[in-house]
């Protein structure tokens, strides 16, 4: 059974078709990255994948179950989101922020159980946040904050994590750090990752599969190595792109025309 199956999905809002007839299948324990120029419909697709938007046509199935048939709590135990611009409420500790991810499991009126607490501790440990668990979230650096947001999604213990531009605004070291720890979760824990990324080189290096969206439609869908080298990529971005190989890895370089 596929982890995620998007069937002929269209999303219309304000009279504009933001996503048009998208079909997509993501296997469990794999990483799929959605790329495409600004306005391609990546964020709309992400919002639909986590139930924040309703499909105008078509459906999204996660773990074989139609997302539209789930209530909020069930959905939060099935798929989690790392938003592009997370709200980080000052005054809250790192621990309490990550613990929000367990709410869908223990419910609103009960405190976290010992097993919930064990999961929170494990996530904090895996994402190197244990030492700063009592810090105010407002005092964290950009990299630490993004690790914390990823940790909250991990604490939801979902089979699928969806990330919208998880490395935007981070320096190179922290970009790699976030992507490496996600890759580790995919390999070691069988997590299914769907991410949107603007950096085509990193998209190609970390994802098993790339999906190129343009004007709401899927233009390319295939192995990372094939999509990165496809001439369609340059056409969608309307610019010259060159792919060079460094230590066996593809690097996508924009070239001035």
């Amino acid at each position: 059974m596929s982890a995620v199956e998007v069937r002929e999905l269209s999303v219309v809002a304000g009279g504009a078709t933001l996503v048009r007839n998208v079909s997509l299948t993501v296997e469990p324990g794999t990483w799929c990255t959605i790329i495409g120029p600004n306005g391609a419909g990546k964020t709309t697709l992400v919002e639909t994948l986590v139930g924040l938007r309703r499909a105008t046509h078509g459906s999204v199935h996660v773990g074989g179950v139609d997302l539209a048939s789930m209530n909020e709590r069930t959905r939060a135990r099935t798929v989690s989101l790392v938003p592009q611009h997370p709200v980080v409420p000052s005054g809250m500790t790192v621990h309490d922020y990550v613990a929000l991810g367990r709410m869908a499991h223990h419910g609103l009126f009960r405190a976290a159980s010992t097993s919930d607490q064990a999961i929170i501790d494990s996530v904090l440990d895996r994402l190197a946040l244990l030492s700063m668990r009592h810090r105010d979230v407002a005092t964290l650096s950009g990299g630490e904050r993004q690790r914390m947001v990823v940790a909250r999604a991990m604490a939801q213990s979902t089979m699928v994590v969806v990330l919208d531009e998880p490395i935007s605004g981070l320096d190179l070291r922290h970009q790699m750090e976030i992507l490496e720890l996600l890759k580790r979760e995919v390999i070691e824990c069988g997590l299914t990752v769907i991410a949107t990324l603007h950096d085509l080189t990193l998209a190609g290096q970390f994802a098993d599969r790339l999906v190129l969206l343009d004007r709401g439609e899927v233009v390319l869908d295939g192995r990372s190595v094939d999509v990165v080298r496809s001439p369609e990529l340059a056409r969608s971005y309307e610019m010259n792109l060159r792919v060079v190989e460094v230590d066996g890895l593809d690097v996508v370089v924009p070239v001035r025309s």
Partner: protein
Amino acid sequence: MGLLGAVICGLAVGPTPIGVGRVLGDLASHVGLGHTTLSSLQSTVIWQLRAPRLVLGLVAGAMLSVAGGTYQGVFRNPLADPYLLGVAAGAGLGATFAIVDVGAGLSTPAWTPLLAFVGAMGAVALTWLVGGRGLRSNASSLILAGVAVSSLLTSLQTFLQQSSSTSIARVYIWLLGSLASSSWNSVTMVLPYVVVCTVICVLAGGALDVMSVGDDESRTLGLPVRRVRLIVIGASSLGTAAIVSAVGLIGFVGIIVPHIVRLLVGTSYRRLLQISVIFGAAFLVYADTIARTVMAPSELPLGVVTALVGAPVFVTILSLRRGDRR
């Protein structure tokens, strides 16, 4: 301890001097321990004047504080108070309608609590309808609708008030809030609403913690945001309307108490709302003790005292906390 002190203050302090020991002795005699040393007049002062006033002060302080904290959480707005969605303006219009003689037997001052309650709930319902029709509403549209509805109802209230010069003073006294007319009757009238609404608000603390990350993220964390908002706003507004109908518009408590508690115990709404119940109850009783004693036998408006006492306390705690962080 603060709450116990407030209870003793509420019973023992007043224009008729009755020692704390004798009040405690009388309290003990009611549970079969010893004999009271109070005269029947003193006993009447304690049990028919001060005790209902104390209880109403406790429940009013608790409800306004927890409602203010809840509103601040649900709207993610530190300036939110229990009157945000038009409760005060609606209650003011209802009460003014009752107090002002509009003729044709349409109003009587005896209807003040009832019409204030109806006005308050009507205003919130109107805000809810204007602000996006119930479940589809969002926080910003509700706040804007609340501002519009409040302005409209306040202008109507002012028009009504100015049309009858003989009752302006009574309207003003009501608008400034007071516990002076407290009775066991008013306590039993508001208590069921306040207990149910306070429990709902306190239980919603966990949901408000989740909502601090915004509507969309809350939904991805499993929270049915719109349903929670409807329940929480409904409970806060109903409890506030009940209190306002009994004691008038006591300002400042609903905004200042949650902020003071937040400075003391942190931002978690689970803790903040629980502590606000106790702190708010004690705060209002202390404020009322000041209101009815500093210019005895006349009384200061309670709303004036809550602001005069609350603002310096708030600023002091704020500056102390800033000092800690340096």
